[in-house]
């Protein structure tokens, strides 16, 4: 009992991350782009070396840093709210079969409704504010989490209910000690699905309402016809997306550290 065998497997980074050599095609693409851009300049595809220069006009007064921060804060706040709210609603709905079946058509509708279509509507009601941004993003990002948790909560082994009764745990304790750990992997899968969607929604809201953030900068650069700046911002957004992905997989591994890993 006391001897816990710990299998120390080599830590594999996020799924499918081949070593650096996999980045060679991207490097080649950028080099070719650079050469073509210098030989035959195109107004639409400025060479990569011109991108950082185009971004410098955003630096004074920390505009770029503020934009990044604003986007990240909106992203984090929305994702946390969507995760907590989505998991809670998912458990409530999933644990009751009648409610779950009754709400199925409504939930299906929201699952297939492109969340971006809601942006103009919620903007109309909530106005052009930071709160509005969070409303829209949470409303769009909550569905993958809610649906995933509902699915897992609905298919929990009935034995778990007996375990609670045998141990004489109250419903509240059962929720904390049995149900929540059991749905956690599902909730985290929902989080993984929701996180890119959340980033997309944040950017869409920012582009279309121009309140603040990286999306606003993208929209402004587009309207002022500055392709080099747009490409620079795309690179920044890409880096952010990859870091977020990495962060989510770290959170996932940390939250599920007590479970044996099934896949190699």
């Amino acid at each position, binding site marked *: 009992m006391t001897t816990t065998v710990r299998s120390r497997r080599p830590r594999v980074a996020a799924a*499918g991350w*081949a070593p650096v050599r996999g980045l*060679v095609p991207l490097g080649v693409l950028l080099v070719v782009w650079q050469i073509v851009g210098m030989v035959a300049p195109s107004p639409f595809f400025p060479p990569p070396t011109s991108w950082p220069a185009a971004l410098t006009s955003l630096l004074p007064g920390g505009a770029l840093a503020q934009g990044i921060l604003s986007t990240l804060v909106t992203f984090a706040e929305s994702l946390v709210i969507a995760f907590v709210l989505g998991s809670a609603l998912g458990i409530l709905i999933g644990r009751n079969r009648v409610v779950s079946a009754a709400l199925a058509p409504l939930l299906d509708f*929201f699952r297939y409704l492109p969340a971006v*279509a809601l942006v*103009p509507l919620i903007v109309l*009601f909530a106005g052009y504010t930071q709160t509005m941004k969070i409303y829209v993003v949470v409303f769009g990002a909550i569905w993958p989490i809610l649906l995933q948790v509902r699915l897992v909560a609905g298919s929990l082994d009935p034995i778990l209910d007996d375990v609670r009764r045998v141990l004489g745990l109250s419903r509240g304790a059962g929720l904390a000690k049995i149900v929540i750990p059991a749905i956690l992997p599902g909730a985290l899968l929902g989080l993984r699905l929701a996180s890119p969607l959340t980033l*997309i929604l944040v950017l869409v809201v920012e582009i279309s309402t121009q309140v603040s953030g990286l999306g606003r900068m993208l929209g402004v650069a587009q309207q002022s016809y500055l*392709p080099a700046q747009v490409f620079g911002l*795309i690179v920044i957004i890409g880096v952010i997306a990859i870091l977020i992905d990495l962060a989510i997989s770290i959170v996932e591994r940390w939250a599920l550290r007590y479970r044996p890993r099934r896949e190699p």
Partner: protein
Amino acid sequence: MTLAPAKKVSRAARRTPRFRGSRILIGAVPLLVVIALWQVAKAAGALPFSTVPSPSDVAVAGYRLIADGELVAAVAHTLVAVILGWVVGSAAGLMLGIALGASATTWRWTMATVQVLRAIPAIAFVSIAVIVFSQTLTMEVVIAAWVAVWPVAISAMDGIRDVTPHHRELAHSLRMRPLARLIKIELPTAAPNVFVALRLSLGGSLALAIVAEIVGNPQGIGYALVQQQLALHADAMFAYIIVAGLIGLALNAAIQALAPLVPGTRGGRS
């Protein structure tokens, strides 16, 4: 306590699938209740925003949009953009996936690039697409296609890499040419994977086409939503959003109907 096991049995018995009819019925009840409550709350002035329309307003607005042909035109435009983009993007993704899955070496030398390109939110490319293609259908199709490429490419690549050594030996001993091997062994192995990806990317194409319409191309559902927002016509916006959800459902149902044709898929829901 002692009754628990008996209860368990009855619960398990209840798990058996019921008639489809009763399922639809039980699903319709809350829908109608929500609509009725919404209507009553609106009439009683209990809604948080006074500008929220009542369901009957939405129905009237929807009818008006259908009657003057505006809704049909917007839906037709969006559908054309989505389907064109999805077909082009999926085809490109399939070819890319086949090329990258061809050998472990190509996989090793390209995987990180694919992951990086895929990770960049497609929405970020809308701005550059608007600059390059201006506000046209092409812009929308390119964006809708870009989203579809990556899931399909990765699923095809993974699927082809899943071919068992047994099947590989079979192809070898039958002296199959590469093309025959691709058609008879690799693609059927990858088919279930690719099918799931095609479904995902169809949803992605729909979402991005609508974004492209909101941000750039002045046509389709996305643009109609923005127009109605500027005109403060909340009722018409609700009508458009309901239609957008129905399109999402319909596209998914359409592709799901093809599941029995795909080798290795059960044709069941997922």
